[in-house]
């Protein structure tokens, strides 16, 4: 079996299994815990309105902006770049459609008659480059900022690595870097994405899911009291 076959076959399957089972295990492991009933008289009955914190907290209050703007801007830069490249790069879309056909026997087009939108390759290259630059900046910040250095652990650095790896190897494959055989580059790119999937449930990358639960819970608890969100 060639490296590419391995990456497209068992490695892909296993990483998806680990991802799905791991994410469910970790999410359900906390979401299914009991909560105590709150007997206090609410100030505001419609606590669910606190769910607006999920959107609200996406940008800091003006009072806090000074010290956090760098982190916010860099954070947005790499998340947006990463997600757009992941979901709207033509080869990715073809790849996902392929998986969908393998699993469901059909794809988005077959199901709805719609085509998944894509971005031009040049735009994706630019987005990936921005994303990589922002991730490098974030890493440097983690190392030079006394606060972030103190609170960081293995997870922070490893999660960074598995996030930047698919971006970097993807750019390398697209550029047919260094005269390596394309198949090899592609295999390494796929494997790096699979590493990301397999690591996802265990470290802080889980924030992509927990963020909604955390902001939502706090929002509802605070809204009930009329406290500041």
């Amino acid at each position, binding site marked *: 079996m060639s490296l590419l076959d391995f990456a497209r076959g068992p490695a892909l399957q296993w990483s998806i299994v680990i991802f799905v089972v791991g994410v469910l*295990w*970790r999410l*359900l*492991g*906390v*979401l*299914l*815990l*009991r*909560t*105590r009933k*709150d*007997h*206090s*008289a609410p100030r505001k009955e419609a606590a669910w309105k606190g769910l607006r*914190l*999920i959107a609200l*907290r*996406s940008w*800091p*209050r003006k*009072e*806090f902006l*000074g*010290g*956090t703007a760098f*982190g*916010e801007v860099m*954070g947005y830069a790499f998340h947006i770049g990463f997600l757009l490249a992941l979901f709207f790069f033509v080869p990715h879309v073809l790849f996902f459609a392929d998986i969908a056909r393998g699993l469901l026997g059909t794809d988005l087009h077959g199901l709805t008659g719609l085509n998944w939108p894509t971005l031009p390759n040049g735009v994706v290259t630019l987005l990936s480059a921005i994303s990589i630059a922002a991730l490098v900046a974030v890493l440097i910040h983690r190392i030079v*900022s*006394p*606060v*972030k*250095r*103190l*609170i*960081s*652990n293995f*997870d*922070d650095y490893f999660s960074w690595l598995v996030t930047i790896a698919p971006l970097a190897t993807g750019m390398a494959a697209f550029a047919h870097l260094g005269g390596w055989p394309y198949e090899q580059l592609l295999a390494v790119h796929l494997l790096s994405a699979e590493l990301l999937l397999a690591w996802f449930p*265990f470290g*802080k990358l*889980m*924030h992509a899911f*927990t*963020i909604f*639960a*955390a*902001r*939502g*819970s*706090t*929002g509802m*608890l*605070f809204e009930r*009291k*009329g*406290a*500041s*969100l």
Partner: protein
Amino acid sequence: MTETTPTTREPDPLEFDQPRVSIRKPEHRFDTQGEAPDAVRVERAMNSFVRDFGRTAAIYMESCIHCGMCAEACHFYEVTQDPQYTPIWKLEPFKQAYKREYGPFAFVYRALNLKPKVTVDELQQWQHLIYDSCTVCGRCSLMCPMGIDIASLVSQARHGMFKAGLVPHELAAVTERARREGSPLGATPKVFADRCEWLADEHEVEITIDKPRADVLCAMSSIEIMKYPESIVATARIMRHIGADWTFRLDGYEATNFGLLTGDAATQKELTLKIIHAAVACGARVVVLPECGHAYTALRWMGANMYGKPLPFKVMHIAEFLAEQVHAGKLRLRKVNRTATFHDPCQLVRRGGAIEAPREVLQALGVELREMYPTKGANWCCGGGGGVVAIHRADELRHKVFRIKMEQIEETGAELPVTSCANCRQTFDDGQAHFKWDKTMHSLLELVADNLVEDEQ
């Protein structure tokens, strides 16, 4: 391991001749209580922390991405730029314990020994972070991009520290006193009754005590009883002014709750239940809490949960009560032609939700309100909440933090700084004395009482 408190020790003497009330500065600190061996202490701390984990706290524990932004919100970090004061770092040993003992992947962490067991030395080191340098003000909880309520986790960690017998000397001493005498600062029923009698004579005002039935049950904080007794007079005057059917009760007059601040859940409950039972006994419709932030958290938001069912009465902070009287047209006030600024008590405003009530009262007083920046929910803490003002070894750090408040208030150019929390107020008095500042913090309650239009005489 520091020395543990000998059981035969005399109780620490209280100190009333200083700008803030606490026990006298201990010549010898005992920051460890009880006789348990180290390993047992750690186990108790972690078990207690992990045991009362509900869904929300667990979600928080799973969510931190170590972005460090919470540091920017914390006054202790702001003034020192010392990374150990990063809010989430204050929970580090507890986070480790959670991952190792409780999280969905705890079995992996244990099997591979990925998170080492926490030691007693670490916990002792962390005492400074969990108590001396956290006022549980919740400002960090407004910053966290993940929406983690970090302050609630600090409270939970304090339960663990209490179970382990690792509470700072002063907090252990006053909580013990509260358990024994019903008041952390010596405001026993007898002291309270005597004070009320003396105040009633001195100020020619009727102070109702132990009326068998009453619509409104009032409570005071021990800081007010011992240090700002004019607040008792002010409460009585206002109640008479609006013609309330009200009373104090000697079986439930003290709203201060050091059980909450220390992390002693049993004492917290005991103290809360006293007020609840007193209110039920006199058939009160409303319990009016004093100018005290954490008393509000303890009864307004946690009281019913201590009681195990909804409270059969309404709980209001005095500022909310006053605002309600203003709206009902029952408070007739003289206009105060001064400029004022309002210091938001964290537990009342940011975390308690009574954001506008004190401002409405100020408006009714006709002052020109000049808001600080930041204000309301984002206002800076005075630095004395969460029991911090009682801890002597925290004084230096607390004074540093107080500079933020002085600057904020100076910037408004307002003549009258006003607040509605006796604990904030004593923190201001202490800061004022320390810095020889020319501004004195005022009580909203007393300001109202001083400006009642008494037309019946």
